[in-house]
């Protein structure tokens, strides 16, 4: 090892505290990048493999009933690769000892020996044999959540009858990687499951002999991404069978959720490292500029000895690159560990048979490249100064620090009022603009990260409050099997613990505007509905319009509609005649895609008898745990599904609290690292540069804390200014990222409460103070008598 490398090593070791804190910033940036990108690639690889092996469908078509033989009439349609039919229905579930309502989806299994579309992965046991009328295969997630095993018994309410079935095995499927109950926002494996039964049992239970109600299919590879051109021509052929909906893969809920998650990951994988590496560049820049300035005589001596400019510059660049290499390596390793952990976390959210956390050499290389690049850029200014210094100049004693007149001094009346202490502080800060930018910039970034976490927390709280205290006020929603008459409402009103009952009429169908088409559901309300309502931005109720649609703004935008425009709605029920409707008004909707319409108008549209599709219940306090209520609910014959609305709120809050707490802890930790790195760099440099000033003050009788106060005042001014900018930056960052992660199901409005702003600034102050204690320690230990003797 060359002696100069030895010099480098000793200098680095002597400043290891500083080194660690700068390296940590770099490492975090790289770790964010590597872990997010790796998670993205892992999830993507897992999904693609799962889809390929399970032959994931490209489209789903729901109908009322279609004879199995008739599928052959469609098979020749251009672009279709394969199709398969099955019977699928929502079901309710009964289990020994479970009071709360549980729902699920039952699916008939394809004939054995077939290379099935949406093939299942068996996790335990086996499939029910063809013709087995008592066996059921249970979705792995539900089985796990309920502790069910092969051989256990379970009762499904299918087609109005109770079927007591024996569990033959458990399974997962690529079409239900993310499984939500209808109307839900989060998976709830305790309350909602999948059930695979033999075709024969399904045909018996749902009175579907020789028929089915769903087609799943795959198109030829060239149509894979966008199968609409292939499936649209099927619509007219299918309408005789009571076509309900056509769902291309990109609209399929499980696929959509996974895709949204992937998109979000990529967005963060780009933004987060930029923040860290940006701060790292600033801090290293300050450090290197100072180092070169401080070592002017050594640089001159080296040059006088015959070291070339290149050798000298390389010596200093190595300083930065070492930080880059170290931070990069730590970041890559840490990012990989984080990715491993995220793979486990994702396995709890998404139902994959496994998520393998792979090592991606490309990411490691790019991560190292980023960190080396950022630190190289950071060293550039200092290294360039070393290069520009002619040997003769380097040896001249360095010019005294320039003290510039600060901007404020242009207003003498204000300047005079500041007092000597503050005048000094401002002058010191204006010595080097780069340092002020670096210190302020670090604080801005740090606070922006904290604000990001706080905006997420505030916004999600706001969302839950809006949604469950203003929009959806029911406790339980009963989905009825057929559009029942007012009787159903009366029945429900007589249940124990029920305080209020309201009917809804929800009708699925297709909305068409020009060439745009979308599967939607219209929710029919009257002025009397209180448990479901639309609200405006201020949280005030919007009455359902007498005529026309009340539509979420984002949906109207997507369909390129404005109030006053007209659209065609083809209901999937009743006589299915296309109807012209106008868009009466749009409103801000954060959750779901409900379109409201007056119930009278909807009823007139459907014609005969259609009255109620959903009954909403508001319970008396405490009734939610009443066994008698659920017993009675389960016995209601017309009920197809029981939705526990408040359970959704609970789930949302639980998940949010957990996930956000981790997120906030991470971001706050990140912010702390940034604050420490920046303040220690600035503090140590200030001590070294102003050794004589500090020593003189000490000699004059100032205590170490009084001297430290001078530095703390500068740090505070800089960091609080930076923090205030960080508040704004953080908010806009959060808003932008919320827009990126907004999905059709959930759009979170960005909210930042005053309380959160105060917390963010207080944290900034606390970090500044704690980091300053390390600087203070150095002042306390400083041998100021020695410092007075040293010649510059």
């Amino acid at each position: 090892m060359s002696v100069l490398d030895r010099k480098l090593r000793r200098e680095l070791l002597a400043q290891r505290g500083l080194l660690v804190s700068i390296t940590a910033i770099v490492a975090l940036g790289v770790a964010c990048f590597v872990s997010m990108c790796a998670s993205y690639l892992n999830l993507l690889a897992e999904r693609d493999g799962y889809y390929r092996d399970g032959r994931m469908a490209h489209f789903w078509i729901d109908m009322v009933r279609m004879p199995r033989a008739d599928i052959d009439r469609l098979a020749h349609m251009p672009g279709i690769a394969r199709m398969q039919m099955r019977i699928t229905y929502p079901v309710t579930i009964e289990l020994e000892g479970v009071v709360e309502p549980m729902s699920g989806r039952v699916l008939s299994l394809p004939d054995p020996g077939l290379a099935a579309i949406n093939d299942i992965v068996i996790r335990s046991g086996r499939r029910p044999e063809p013709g087995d009328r008592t066996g059921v295969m249970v979705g792995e997630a539900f089985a796990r959540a309920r502790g069910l095993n092969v051989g256990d018994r379970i009762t499904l309410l299918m087609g109005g009858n109770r079927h007591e079935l024996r569990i033959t095995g458990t399974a997962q499927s690529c079409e239900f990687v993310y499984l939500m109950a209808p109307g839900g926002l989060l998976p709830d494996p305790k309350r909602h499951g999948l059930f695979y039964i033999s075709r024969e049992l399904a045909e018996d239970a749902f009175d579907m002999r020789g028929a089915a109600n769903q087609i799943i299919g795959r198109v030829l590879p060239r149509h894979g991404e966008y199968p609409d051109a292939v499936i649209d021509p099927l619509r007219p052929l299918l309408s005789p069978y009571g076509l309900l909906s056509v769902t291309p893969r990109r609209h399929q809920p499980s696929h959509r959720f996974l895709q949204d998650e992937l998109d979000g990951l990529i967005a963060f994988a780009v933004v987060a490292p930029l923040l860290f590496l940006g701060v790292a560049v600033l801090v290293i820049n300050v450090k290197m500029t100072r180092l070169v300035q401080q070592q002017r005589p050594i640089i001159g001596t080296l040059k006088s000895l015959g070291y070339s400019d290149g050798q000298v510059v390389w010596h200093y660049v190595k300083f930065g690159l070492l930080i880059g290499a170290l931070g990069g390596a730590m970041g890559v390793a840490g990012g990989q560990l984080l990715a491993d952990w995220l793979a486990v976390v994702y396995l709890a959210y998404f139902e994959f048979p496994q998520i393998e956390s792979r090592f991606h050499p490309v990411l490691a290389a790019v991560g190292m490249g980023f960190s080396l690049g950022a630190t190289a850029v950071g060293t550039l200014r200092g290294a360039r100064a070393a290069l520009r210094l002619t040997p003769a100049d380097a040896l001249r004693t360095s010019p005294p620090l320039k003290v510039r007149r600060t901007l404020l001094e242009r207003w003498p009346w204000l300047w005079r009022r500041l007092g000597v202490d503050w005048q000094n502080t401002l002058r010191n800060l204006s010595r080097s603009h780069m340092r002020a930018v670096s210190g302020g910039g670090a604080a801005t970034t740090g606070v922006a990260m904290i604000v990001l976490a706080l905006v997420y927390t505030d916004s999600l709280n706001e969302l839950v409050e809006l949604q469950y205290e203003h929009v959806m006020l029911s406790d339980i929603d009963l989905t009825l099997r057929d559009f029942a008459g007012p009787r159903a409402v009366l029945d429900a009103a007589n249940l124990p613990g029920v305080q209020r009952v309201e009917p809804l009429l929800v009708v699925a169908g297709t909305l068409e505007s020009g060439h745009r088409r979308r599967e939607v559901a219209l929710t029919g309300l009257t002025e009397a509905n209180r448990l479901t309502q639309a609200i405006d931005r201020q949280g005030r109720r919007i009455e359902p319009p007498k005529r026309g649609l009340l539509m979420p703004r984002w949906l109207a935008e997507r369909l390129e509609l404005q109030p006053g425009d007209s659209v065609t709605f083809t209901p999937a029920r009743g006589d299915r005649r296309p109807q012209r409707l106008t868009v009466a008004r749009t409103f801000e909707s954060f959750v779901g895609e409900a379109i409201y319409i007056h119930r009278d108008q909807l009823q007139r549209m459907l014609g005969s008898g259609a009255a109620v599709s959903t009954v909403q219940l508001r319970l008396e306090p405490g009734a939610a745990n009443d066994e008698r209520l659920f017993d009675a609910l389960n016995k209601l014959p017309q009920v197809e599904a029981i939705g526990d609305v408040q359970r959704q709120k609970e789930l949302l809050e639980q998940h949010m609290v957990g996930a956000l707490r981790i997120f906030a802890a991470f971001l706050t930790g990140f912010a702390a690292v940034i604050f420490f790195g920046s303040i220690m760099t600035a503090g140590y440099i200030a001590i070294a540069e102003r050794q004589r000033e500090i020593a003189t003050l000490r000699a004059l009788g100032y205590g170490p804390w009084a001297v430290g106060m001078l530095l703390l005042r500068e740090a505070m001014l800089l960091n609080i200014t930076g923090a205030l900018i960080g508040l704004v930056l953080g908010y806009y960052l959060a808003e932008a990222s919320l827009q990126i992660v907004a999905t059709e199901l959930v759009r979170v409005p960005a909210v930042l409460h005053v309380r959160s702003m105060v917390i963010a600034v207080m944290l900034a102050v606390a970090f500044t103070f704690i980091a300053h204690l390390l600087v203070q320690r150095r002042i306390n230990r400083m041998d100021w008598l020695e410092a007075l003797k040293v010649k510059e």
Partner: protein
Amino acid sequence: MVAPEASQAMVQLADVSRTYRMGEVDVTVLRGVDLAVETGELMVIVGPSGSGKSTLLNIMGAMDRPSTGSVHFRGRDIASMSDRELTRFRRDHIGFIFQFYNLVPTLTARENVVVATELARDPLDAAEALEMVGLADRMDHFPGQLSGGEQQRVAVARAVAKQPQLLLCDEPTGALDAETGKAILRLLVDINDRLGTTIVAITHNAPIARLAHRYLRLGSGRIVERQFNTRRAAVEEIAW
């Protein structure tokens, strides 16, 4: 002035001027200096602060270029060399000693010497060089653990270890007291005597000029006095 090839001078300066641009004004620091440094001589340059001594020394040592005029080293024109050639030239021929030693504080005495020998073509062993300046037993000490005089001796060892043809000293005793200062001077005289190294030394301290074969006095960028010492004083005789 004598043509370079006609003389045995090691360094030959002809009509050298150096001007610095300070914002709007030009400051002329050296004005038409003619000077020849003979091989093997010990030359001392004295003069008041700001008279251009360091500037002159830097130009002789290929650290700086004259604004006008020529500088020849053993017949080679160094004023027109590229930066790269100047670096090479310093590496091969020149040794420097500074007023404030300029040691690397994070390297030991020996390592500070190695910084120089690593680059040199035919260096002395670092230990040998340190032994020569009487620091054999302090080789593994850091500069912070050495006195000023000892540090300057390390700097002498660093300069000498390269086996330079020309040793340039910018106020080598400027930061030292009489005793330690004299010890350093003794070393320099010894190096000049025994190794035959050509030495040019700057000093504020006029009596030191009595040690030299020849001394110059600089004033406002001009050589105002040139003297041969018919009898060189011994170091002990110098009043500090």
